[in-house]
Each structure stands twice: as C-alpha cells, then as structure tokens.
C-alpha cells in the first residue's frame, strides 16, 4: 500500500471537504447559528479558501514565459508594482507612453497538510493563487511529499528547494522555476484574492511528485539556507572559477570522481543544467546548508547537483560536508550573592543538564562568514565559522540562560542575525527560547565580551519585564531581522545617502535652498504636525520582527537611525537621561528611553503634545486620587481629619523644573516645595487654592515600558492581599512549645511568599531588635472569613476526632461572641503572622483580639482550642497588611519582591537589586501639626528617598496621616482607600494580522521580501499568506 503521494483525485476530494469544513468552522467561530426553535436552516455564504496550514514561504522573480529563453530574473528585479492579470507582463513606463516588461514576483508557500507547494503571483491583483490544473476543480498545487519543513529559493530565481520530513521519505526536492507556473492559460472564475487560473508556462507536463529532482536524507531536515561557495582563481590565469563540489579543484568539470560521493549507482544520468544553472546567478556554487535535527548535525549539499538529479529516483543525497555539533555545555559560573540587609538571595543552582546526547539543531542564521544554529536539546547556540560552505568549523558556542530561572536548561528554536553591522560595528543575534517563545539577544560582534544573553542596562526601572530577554504575552513562532532605510535627498544634489542618523543638535539645517547642510537634520520630526520625520512607525535602521502565535507581529528596536531625535528637548534624570543625552530639536517626548536598543518598539509618541494626535501617549492619571471611607463613600478633599496622598519630592532642585503630572492628559505642575498640584503663572509654579488640597502623585518616566497597562489602583489602609479569595486552609493549632508543635495556618496552594506576605519576624529583621511591638503592628495578619457552623448544625451535638463532645469545648453562642459573623466580624478573627512560609504561616492572636488579655495583652490560653472548635473544617480567609497602605492594581495586583528563602523557607524580601521598585506597601507618614485653616499649611513633605516614600515601577507618592488633633497623632482607619486610574501605558508597535477580526489566524513563518521591502507572513490557520507593508505597519494583502 502506498500512502504518499496522494493521487490527484484524492487531493480534489480533500479540497472539496476542506471548503465545506472551513465553511462550517467559520460559521461556528462567527457565532452565525441557525435558530433551533424554528426547525429551519439558514444558509451562510463564506469565502472559499485554497490555502490551509501554510508553512513557510520563499520568493522568485520570473519574467514572461518564453520557450526560447530563460524567464528567471534576480529577485531584485521585481518590485511592488502590480497588474490585474497573471498573464499581464507589461506595465506603463513611469514617464508614460512606452510599455516596459514587468516581471512577476511569485511566492512559493508550503502547504503542510497536503504536502504541496502553492504558487502565488503577488504581482497580479486578481486570481493570484495559481491553479496548476484548472481541469480539476479546486486549487491544485505542486506536490512535494508530506510534512514540508522549509523552503528556500535561489536569489537569482533559478530554483526553489524544499525540505520534506515525511516519515520514511525524508528528503529534499528541487523545483525549477521553469516549472512552477501552470501550463495552460485559463483564468479562473474566482475574484479578488481567490483561487486563480494560470499563466502560460513553459512545461508540457502537469506536476507530479515524481517529476521533481529530489534526493533522500537519512532523517528529517530542519531549516536550510543557500550559501554560495565563492569562485576561486585559476592559476596561472587568475581567472575566476568555481568548483563543482567541495572536494574538487576550482575549475574542475562537474563529473570528476571527487564529486561522485556516495551517489546511488542506480541513479540515472544527470541532466546538467536542464533545470537551470545556479552559477549563472553569479553567486558562485550554491550549497544547501541543512540542519538534520535528529542526527545532531548540519549537512552541506550541492544545490546544482540536486537540481540536476534525475526525477523520480530519490537516491540518497550526496552530503559533501557533515558537521556534527558539539554537546558539551560549559558549567556556568555561580552567581555571586548580592547581599543586603534583611533580605535573602534567590536560589542559585546550576541547570540540571540532561545526560550527554546529540545536539538537535533546528534554526539557522548566516552573516559575514558565520553560521548560527539553534538547538532544541542542548543549551547552546552553535557558532560555526563558515568562510565557505565547504569549510565549516565550530567555534565556542553562545550560552542561552535565564536570569529569572537560573536552574533552567534553556534551549532555542529559531535564530536570526543582523545582516549588517550597526554603525558602532555591533552585530546581534536573536534566539527564540524554545520553552516560552521569548527572544534572547546576543552580542556577536568581533569585540564581544560575553557569550550570555544581553541584559537591559537599567532593569530596575521595569522590573516586571525579564532583564535578559524580550517577552510578549504570546510566544514567537518565527523572527526576522531587517535593515532598511528611507533616505532623504539632499536639497542641493538630490542625492540620498543611506544610513544617516537623525541629528537633533546641528544648526546647519537642510533647507530647500541649502547648498551645504547636515543631512541628519532632514530626518527631524515636523513638530507642527508630527506627521513626518522621526516617529514611532517610521522604521529606519535595524529592527527585529517577531511573529507571535496570537496573530501579531511585534517590532523590536535594534538600531533606530532616528533615535537621537526621539526624546525630551531638555534632559533630566527624571526622564531617564544620562550624560550622553543632549536633547535638542527632538520630538519633545517625556523620556530619553523611548527608543531603546533590543527592546519592544513603542507605537506612539511619549509626549504631552496634543499635536501628535492619536499617536500621543503620556503616562499620567485620569483624575487626582480620591479618598473613600470604609463604606465606600468619597471623602471631601477639604476634610482635614483624613489622610492625604502627596507627591514625593526629588533632589537636586535643578531638575525640579520638569515636576509635572498629566491629569486627564493635561499637564499639571507640581509644587517642588510642597508636592502639591499647582498652577503655572508666568513660568513660575504658584499655589492654586483649587488644587492645593487634592491628593496627588508622580509618574515614573525613565522607561515608558514600565507603564505596562492602564489600570485602576487602590491604595487601602490595611487592605487585603489578593489571591486568597477561594483558598481553603486548615488550622493546626498545636502550639505546645515543643519543637515542631506550632500554631500554623496551612495551605500550600496559597503560596504565601509568592503572594508577598510579610511576617512579624521579617519586619523585625528590618527594624532591628527592640522593635517587637512595632513589628507586630506592621506584620500581616490572617482574617478568618468562614462562618461558624449554623446553630442547628448537627456538629454542635457531635464529638470531635478525639471522642470528646464538642459542647465541652465550645458552643455556638460562645463562638459567635468571640468571632462575630462575616457581616459583623469580631476581632477574634484576626491573627498576626509571626512567620511565613510558602505553604503555611505561624499565627498568634492579633493585638486587640478578643483572645488577648485586656490588661497584659498576652494571648488567652484557650484561644487554640476555641478557634479549633469553632471552625471545625477548612476555612476561607484574607491576609491583610498590618498598619500600612496596600497598593494594588486591578491588573498588576500587589507588587512585591518577597521570595522563599532557599535555605530556611521563610518569606523574605529578595536582595536582587533589580527588584527594588516591586513594592506594594506604603508606610504611614505622621502629620504632627494640626490644621485649622482653609488649606493645609503645615503639611509635611517627603523626599522620594526618605522615610514614608513609596515607589513602584509606575509612580511614587507618600500618604500622610490625618493631621494631629490637640497634639495627638492620628492614624488612618482600616479600609480607607485612595483610588485612581493610570493612563498612557506603553503600547508596543505590533501589526495585527487579523484584518477581518477573525481568530482563525496563527502565524508560523516570516520572510523579508527585499524586492518590495515588505514582510511576508505565512498563516498556519486558513489565511494563507499575508503581506505586511513596513511603511504603514499594516497588512496590505492577503492570499488564501
């Protein structure tokens, strides 16, 4: 029984079924359902789709079919021009009048379910998907065997090569470009981007799988590249000549014995050149460099030899070079402890390396004589010195790791490398983490100093993002790195120079009449309109594009030529500027780090300037923070017996000129002396009685990426930590004093350290010995949220597990008195957390509890038995912060940097300096003076590094206690709450591939089309091939 290839009739039946099923799926997905109650059906029209589960794509440029000469053209001969018909190869000359030949750009897209290659004429706007056999209904493509893995075309367009992983038939196929177009000229009936007919081809045969030159591999291939073996010089003439195979001499004939290899003796004679001559492309002798994952190495195969192979034989491929890749992962150096007071270092263990095995290379990238290979099994990115494909030599590898999880064995699935060095001679390699789809960046420049992933220079500004990788909410399925420019012509000469950086400081500006000027000034933003010049969607420089499985393309800045012109006009440390930042004629944005190498690109201007229109984003708040009382009612800001939120002040005074806050997108000056919202009069900040009493805060502007999401914030005095709502814990009150006999509250699922719980002992370590009472107050406490059993519950008349009658220990009324109800809880429900672990907390009755002696404050001896008796089952609970303000975002939750001590298991702050802004507790600030006037006149100020100052990645503030009354300090009331909403979150530049709102999209591959400057994206779902225009960052065409 032969299982592959499918016969033509089978393919036809399959496609018909696909159409029906896709239709059914679309109906289902769209929610367009017939009404069952009417017992009637409803017809829903749907588009027919020919492409399904596309894999990867490559392009060739072909001229009008011509029997007498080759129609192959270099890929750069094609451009973005379009015509309507697949048969139209002429276009109007730009000057009008005369016609000129217009070659067509063809996309070859692997179809992974059918084992075919679809050919799409991207130059034609109608019937672009070519039907190889119009006599058979449905779209018919080029059959190449099941599980096509990769496809690559020669740059001159002579042929395309496909790697196939069909089990038992793994191999390579060559598709000569002369045979990829249909043989008959029949325009299909479909319109738009539907399935089209064919153009006049040059072959007289319909494609069959046995009709392609092909060879068999020992195992399934992975990614492959075409890399030229350059011509050498013949002696003594110095005439350039290629070598037919790696073991031959330059200038040797193709059939020299050195090139016979292990060729199958049964293979027929080679038809040299009949299917095209790759050397005619002028790139030397092209070699296919192919990863063979399960064999742990890379094979080098002569592309022309494969193209010359007699079709249908399927002999073993002649592997000219085989490079087994290394598997020895060097032992990583231990991370030195960071140290610190009252904190613990995160665990560090070496990754548990798998037992010695072969490598499993998959992805490949090549630049400047170096080949890079990702590896799915071994924690290495292989670096291969490859002056020519015939001389591969493995160099010391790159070492993918994870700062967040140093014990993890990090492997990689894809790699891409910057095609050219940046102006500062840097070259970067991007590798996708095989486990989570994040991207790591390696410096592979000649002067590289580390083989580990690069880290962001100031990770503490944005601690929510990993410092050593770029991560989105969905993993990256593929990536490409593109270098592009949109050069502006000089006024005097009209010449346009590539690679010019925007210059914000030069005074020698290029005007229309300028004879000599600094070309960098041509790229400045038009500040009157923000519609030209440097901007978020203008991509000049080097950028990485990640295809996310969620149906989006994310853009990463690597080297933006316009970066110098993106930033504030006047620099400030508050904007994250350093000494090298100069300001000047810039986009007047509120951060020096709007463009940051190797981080996600921002989709908007980070500015308060309304001129930027829809592309304006400014971190701020919707309205001033509002205080609410414990019943949820707003508290009048003029009520002086209430707490107040103030902005913390910044030193030195020289930077205070930029002290401002965006409120509802309007900039409000903040008085640098008081931290109160103020007015600006004649350039001076003056008090505004209408604003002085309002609570306020300051946004952090150093790194716009720290503003991760617009959200609502709740700053609650003794607020509950989130995450315990549906948890159930057991009480184990065995505090006999004997070793191991502790009073604990157990629930491993609660993960108390991960939730940020702070115990009395943890606080005491920070405060120092002698502050036990204060530590007890600041410690978090458990609040039991279960009801005691109903009065008529049979429990009260039962016996406990020791056989003792329950009523001998507790009764309903006693329990109700001690614990109250959920609506009217008593203080007996509150237990201070003495020590916290990931799976449990040690507790004792909280100060003021009904289980404390009113005089001595000591816990009553009955508290354990009574609590255990009143709550016989698992209990629900809250954990509230003690005597502090809890800062919670409805998206971020309560930020903290508490970890479980790797040695003792107790919950403590991490010493990791990158986490210092991960905070969710604000201390109280005493307000020792009374206020009696209309405005607060004695309001304390708080320096942003002083006691009581709160800072998280997004903003900073301090909360003042209510003013003292008659000399007596006041304190907030549990449950009092400030509320505000942040705006202006960082919006990464992403291209949404779902043009029709469909969820049936899942990008799997990408390719840059140099001919058009566009990005081609293949969809693993039903959307075939999508073309993304990099000037607009939008999908401009879809072929399905």
């Amino acid at each position, binding site marked *: *029984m032969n299982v592959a290839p499918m016969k033509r009739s089978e393919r036809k039946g399959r496609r018909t079924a696909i159409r029906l099923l896709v239709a059914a*799926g679309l109906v289902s997905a769209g929610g367009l359902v017939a009404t*069952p109650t009417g017992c009637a059906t409803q017809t829903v029209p749907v588009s027919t789709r020919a492409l399904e589960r596309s894999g990867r794509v490559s392009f060739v440029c072909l001229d009008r079919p011509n029997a007498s000469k080759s129609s192959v053209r270099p890929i750069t001969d094609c451009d973005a021009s379009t015509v309507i018909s697949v048969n139209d190869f002429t276009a109007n000359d730009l000057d009008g009048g005369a016609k000129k030949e217009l070659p067509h750009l063809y996309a070859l897209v692997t179809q992974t379910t059918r084992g075919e290659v679809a050919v799409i004429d991207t130059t034609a706007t109608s019937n672009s998907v070519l039907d190889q056999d119009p006599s058979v209904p449905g779209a018919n493509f080029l059959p190449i065997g099941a599980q096509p893995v990769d496809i690559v075309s020669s740059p001159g367009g002579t042929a395309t090569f496909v790697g196939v992983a069909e089990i038992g038939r793994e191999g390579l196929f060559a598709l000569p470009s002369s045979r990829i177009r249909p043989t008959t000229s029949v325009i299909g009936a479909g319109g738009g981007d539907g399935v089209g007919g064919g153009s006049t081809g040059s072959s007289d045969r319909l494609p069959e799988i046995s009709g392609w030159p092909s060879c068999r591999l020992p195992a399934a291939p992975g990614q492959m590249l075409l890399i030229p073996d350059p011509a050498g010089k013949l002696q003594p003439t110095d005439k350039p000549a290629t070598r037919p195979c790696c073991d031959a001499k330059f200038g040797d004939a193709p059939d020299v014995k050195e090139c016979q290899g292990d060729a199958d003796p049964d293979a027929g004679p080679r038809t040299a050149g009949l299917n095209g001559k790759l050397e005619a492309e002028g790139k030397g002798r092209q070699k296919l460099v192919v990863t063979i994952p399960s064999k742990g190495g890379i094979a080098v195969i002569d592309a022309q030899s494969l193209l010359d192979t007699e079709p249908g034989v399927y002999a073993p491929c002649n592997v000219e070079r085989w490079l087994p890749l290394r598997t020895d992962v060097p032992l990583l150096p231990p991370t030195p402890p960071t140290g610190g007071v009252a904190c613990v270092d995160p665990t560090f263990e070496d990754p548990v390396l798998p037992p010695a095995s072969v490598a499993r290379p998959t992805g490949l990238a090549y630049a400047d004589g170096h080949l890079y290979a990702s590896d799915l099994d071994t924690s290495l990115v292989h670096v291969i010195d490859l002056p020519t494909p015939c001389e591969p030599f493995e160099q010391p590898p790159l070492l993918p790791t994870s700062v967040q999880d140093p014990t993890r064995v990090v492997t990689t699935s894809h790699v891409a490398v910057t095609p050219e060095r940046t102006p500062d001679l840097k070259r970067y390699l991007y590798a996708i983490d095989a486990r*989570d789809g994040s991207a790591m960046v390696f410096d592979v420049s000649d002067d590289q100093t580390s083989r580990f992933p690069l880290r962001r220079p100031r990770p503490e500004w944005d601690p929510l993002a990993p410092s050593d990788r770029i991560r989105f909410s*969905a993993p990256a399925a593929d990536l490409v790195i593109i270098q592009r420019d949109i050069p502006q012509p000089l006024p005097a000469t009209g010449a346009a120079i590539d690679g010019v950086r925007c210059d914000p400081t030069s005074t020698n500006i290029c005007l229309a009449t300028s004879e000599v000027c600094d070309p960098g000034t041509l790229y400045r933003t038009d500040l009157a309109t923000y519609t030209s010049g440097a901007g978020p969607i203008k991509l000049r420089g080097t950028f990485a594009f990640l295809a996310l499985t969620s149906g989006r393309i994310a853009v990463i800045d690597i080297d933006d030529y316009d970066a110098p012109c993106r930033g504030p006009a006047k620099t400030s440390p508050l904007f994250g500027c350093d000494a090298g930042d100069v300001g000047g004629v810039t986009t007047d944005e509120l951060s020096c780090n709007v463009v940051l190498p190797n981080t996600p690109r921002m989709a908007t201007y980070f500015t308060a300037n309304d001129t930027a229109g829809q592309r304006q984003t400014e971190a701020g708040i919707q309205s001033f923070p509002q205080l609410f009382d414990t019943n949820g009612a707003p508290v009048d800001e003029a009520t002086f017996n209430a707490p107040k939120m103030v902005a913390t002040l910044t030193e030195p005074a020289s930077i205070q000129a930029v002290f401002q806050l965006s409120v509802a997108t309007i900039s409000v000056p903040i008085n640098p002396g008081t931290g109160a919202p103020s007015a600006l009069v004649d350039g001076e900040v003056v008090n505004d009685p209408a604003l002085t009493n309002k609570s306020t805060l300051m946004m952090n502007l150093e790194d716009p990426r720290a503003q991760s999401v617009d959200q609502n914030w709740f700053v609650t005095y003794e607020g509950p930590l989130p995450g315990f709502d549906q948890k*159930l814990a057991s009480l184990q009150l065995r505090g006999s004093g004997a070793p191991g006999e502790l009073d604990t509250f*157990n629930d491993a699922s609660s993960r108390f350290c991960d939730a940020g719980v702070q115990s009395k002992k943890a606080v005491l370590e920070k405060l120092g010995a002698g502050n036990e009472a204060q530590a007890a107050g600041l410690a978090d406490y458990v609040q039991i949220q279960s009801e005691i059993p109903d009065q008529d519950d049979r429990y009260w008349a039962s016996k406990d597990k020791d056989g003792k009658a329950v009523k001998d220990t507790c009764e309903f009324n006693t329990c109700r008195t001690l614990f109250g109800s959920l609506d009217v809880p008593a203080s007996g429900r509150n237990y201070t957390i003495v020590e916290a672990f990931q799976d449990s907390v040690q507790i004792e009755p909280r100060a003021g509890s009904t289980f404390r002696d009113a005089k001595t404050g000591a816990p009553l001896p009955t508290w354990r038995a009574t609590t255990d008796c009143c709550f016989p089952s698992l209990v629900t609970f809250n954990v509230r912060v003690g005597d502090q303000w809890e800062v919670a975002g409805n998206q971020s939750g309560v930020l903290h940097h508490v970890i*479980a001590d790797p040695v003792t298991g107790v919950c403590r702050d991490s010493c990791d300096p990158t986490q210092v802004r991960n905070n969710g507790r604000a201390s109280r600030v005493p307000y020792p003076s009374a206020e009696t006037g209309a405005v607060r006149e004695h309001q304390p100020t708080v320096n942003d590094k002083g006691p009581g100052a709160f800072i998280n990645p997004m903003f900073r503030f301090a909360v003042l206690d209510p003013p003292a009354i008659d000399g007596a300090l006041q304190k907030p009331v549990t449950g009092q709450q400030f509320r505000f909403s942040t705006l202006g979150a960082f919006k990464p530049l992403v291209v949404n591939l779902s043009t029709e709102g469909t969820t049936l999209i899942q990008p799997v591959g990408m390719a840059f089309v140099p001919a058009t400057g566009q990005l081609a994206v293949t969809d693993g779902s*039903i959307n075939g091939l999508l073309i993304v225009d990099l000037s607009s960052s939008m999908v401009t065409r879809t072929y399905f």
Partner: protein
Amino acid sequence: MQPARSSLPRFPAAGSPASARRGGVATVALGLSALVASGCFLGDTTVPPPVNAFYYPTGLVRSPGGSTLYVTNSDFDLQYEGGTVFALDLTKLRPQLGTLLTALRKVGTDKTSTVEGACNGRRNTNSILNPGPCLAIPLALANGGEPLAASIGAFASGAVLVKRPDTTTDARLFVPVRGDPSITFLDIANDTSTGTFKRTLRCSSVTADNGARCTNDHLIGIEPFESTRSITLPTEPVGIDVSEDGKAIVVAHQTLKAVSLSINQWPASSGTTNENGSKPTLEFVLGNLPDGPTEVVAVPIPKLFKDRVELDIPTIDYQPGFLITYRAAPVLDLVRVHKSESGTARPSLSLATETLISVNADGKDSRGIAIDPSARRGCEDDCLKVTDVPTCLLGCTKIPIDVYIANRTPPSLLIGRLETTTTPQGSVKPTGAFDRVMITDSVPLAQGASKIAVGNVIDPQGNLSRRVFTAAFDSRLVFSYDPDNHRVDAIIKTGRGPHALAFDDDRTATDATKAEHAFLVIGHFTDSYLGVVDLDMRHPETFGTIFASVGTPMPPRDSK
C-alpha cells in the same frame, strides 16, 4: 493512568431535524443539537440499543492488561432507548490485525502481493465511508462473536477505567451519561491479574443478560439521599477523570459553569458488584467557574509524598488536583480535592490556580486535554535503583509534566507544562507542595480539534517514542505531534468524525522500551466504526494510515 477522556464534539448549529437528516453527516449532528434544544424529540424509547454494532461511539478505553477494549456508544440520534458499553476481546482481534498488516506491508515490495489479495478479496471501494484499504471487519468476526455489552443512558460522552488498588482482580469503568444525567459505573475484571481472567461487565444487580440495562444502583448522582449534601448530579456531564488512587472522580458539566466531585468506594469483598454502603457517591459541586467546563484530567501526585497524600496523613499539605478546560473562557483551571476532615466536613473541591491562555488569537474553546508525566514517572521509577531514594525522588518532582490541550480558536495544539514546587526547598520530607501551570506554545491544527491523547509510536530503531495525537473532527484528520522536535510529524487521514482515541501497544517481554506493534484505535463518531492505524515507523508503507476498520461503517440514518 491515561484513560480515555472525551466529550461530544461541538457542532455548528443547524436547523430542523427534518432538514438535518437530509443534509448528511455534519448536518445530522447539527440538527441533533437543535433537536434537544428545541424539544423536537423524535427518538424511540422502546427499542433496545444494538449489541452487535457500534452506534456513535464516544469513548475508548483499553484495559490495563491489554485484553479488552471498552467502547461507549452514545445513541446520539436517540433511535434507541439508550446507549451501550461494549467489551471487545482484543485477543481475538489482534491476530486478525496482525495478519492483515503483514499482508498489506508486502504490497509494493512483493510483486505477487496485491491489495486485493491482502484484503482476501474484500477490497474497500468507498474511501469516504471507510478510509481503509479493505472492507471493515464485522464486529462479530473481530470479537469472535457478539461483544459483551451493557445498556446505559443516552449520550455517553466518554469513559475512564480505574483499577482497584488493593486487589489485582477488580476494576471499574466510569461513564458520564448526559441523558440521565449520571455517572454510570460498571464493575469489570482487572486483566493484569496473573490468575484466570474472565471478561465481565456488570452494572446490574438484577440481571446478567448480555446487553442488560444498568440499574440505578450503578448510577451516581441520581438519588439525592445518597449524597451527604443531598445533591444530584448537574446536567451535561462531559469530561471525566479519576485520581490516581481511584477515589476522587471529577466531572465537568458543560452548561453549568460547574465541576462535580464524586467519591469512589470499593465493596468490602473483592469480586462483588455493589454492596451496601460501597456505592460511589456524589459529594460536591464546585460552581461559579468560567463558562463551558469541558474536559478534565487528573494531575499525578509526586511519588516523594504520594503515600502521605493518599493516606491523608496531615504532614504534607498537597491535595489531588485536576485540570479543567473551558469552551467559553481562555483559561485552564487547577482544582483540588479536599478530603474529609474533622467535624461535619465533607469532601470538597476548591479552585487552586487559574492559568490564562494567551498563546493563540483567542484562547477560548479548549476541548480535549492530556498530560504526559512519563519523564517524571521514568525518573521516579529509576529512583528505586538507587540507595538514597528520597533525594532521588525530590529531584524527580522538579521535572515538569507536559500538558497538551486541543483548542479551536484557531484550531491549535496548546502546549504547556505543570511544575511542582515543594516546600521547604530541598527537603526530602516537604511539608507542602503546589503546582503551577503554564501554557507556552501553540501549534496549528485543522478545523475541529477535539480529542487528544498521548501515546507511543515505534521509531525507525524499534524504540517506543512519545507522540501527542489530536483528532480534528471536522477535517477528518488526526495529527501526530513530536514533542522532541516541536513539530507535527505525521497527519493521519481518517473517516468522518474521528473522535475517541485509544492505543494498543504491547511491550516486548524483554525490553519495556520496545513493542511488537503499536496501533492507534480511532472511534469514528459519524459512521459508527473503529479505525485502526499502524504506528510503526519501521514500515513507512503502512505507517500513519488506517489499515483496518472494525465494525461495519454505518452512515447516519437517512443521509446515505
């Protein structure tokens, strides 16, 4: 335990039953959904279900010893008074499959061999109804007579098998039945016993006739007085799984945002069916979950503290867990079973963690779920060979368990992992442990991804190699995903409505990493038959194809 877990696939809606019966396979399914919703009930409640033919099969479970294949038939178009459970004799079927496979492999290599000859003159010509090269093996012939059968309610949506831990002879089959609704359980024989094995299928204390209807004492959730909370089973039980110790049964209720917990209890005497007080009981319903709970899978307990958890020794804080998928929410939930404690406490479920699915365009509409604990299990088994077993087992808990989900928006295989953290770290006798689940990747599939199962193929070197199989109901495909190479490595073309999946790979006597054969059995819902796929890569000529069908394919009525 890798039991079959299934639910009925979701169908696009359609209209009246009359038009549905005209419209062919998919339309029949569509119309039947409408039938129930609109009250246009046309089923025959007086005709007993057939015991000699499959009828909309939804669940396949191979017995642990490999002697029997249990098949649940759903009576999806309500032509009968209920569905059935069959116990197929694999010892009779397997030689027939072997003979056929050997003959088919000769075709193409041996010039004298033909498909016609391999099929004994019964070559198949209708590849739509039956994708195999030969006509189907009639059920009675495959089984050596009519299969052992029992009648159950309509709309069975899967099955799961549990071995009794304290004996080697008893086992139970739990079947969620939407028509009752109930969890119907059948007492069966455990064929791993070294003694004489007698195939049984008992769910009635009244009669032992073949095909007899299961009685109420084998239906969980019917009578409120049997429950300590006086509750009955919520409607639409679909996904089901059982904890490793066979005690906790968790079922997803598709329309009620709820999962239920039942507790299994074994009879005091081995071999008896259902003594007083030993009937499994419904204990708890966890509500307020996201819309559309669909499938359930039990999380294995690390061996380091498995005994303490199963014996309910309170020195470890870790509860048996189950993962839940949802149709209408982009999340994956982990719920935990809390066993009976002091006072009036009764078993209950709680939501431990909720994992957001953000790896594909929408994340909603998750269907089947499967886990692969083999790496951790292998490590734990190897620990028995070392001297410091606890330290070895502690290391094994750090090995993540792979999680796979079939999702439909877009059709994709979601890949994740479940990680277990013990506390305190590094202790060989931890006081607690918790699990975290992460969904990290998405692989495109084809329309109608539904059932999913982890099994083995025989690789070219003859070793067993893990694969994840996902049925795409609408597309008539089953995808084989290779976790080592991170890609789909084979696509199996099936008949109409592939749904339930089961594996049959008998290890060699000398080497557990090798097998004599590896088959994938596919329950074809639409045309009511089983397809058998060869999973032996050493034979590319038959690998990944349905080489045999069992039970005569029968298209939906009035839609031929």
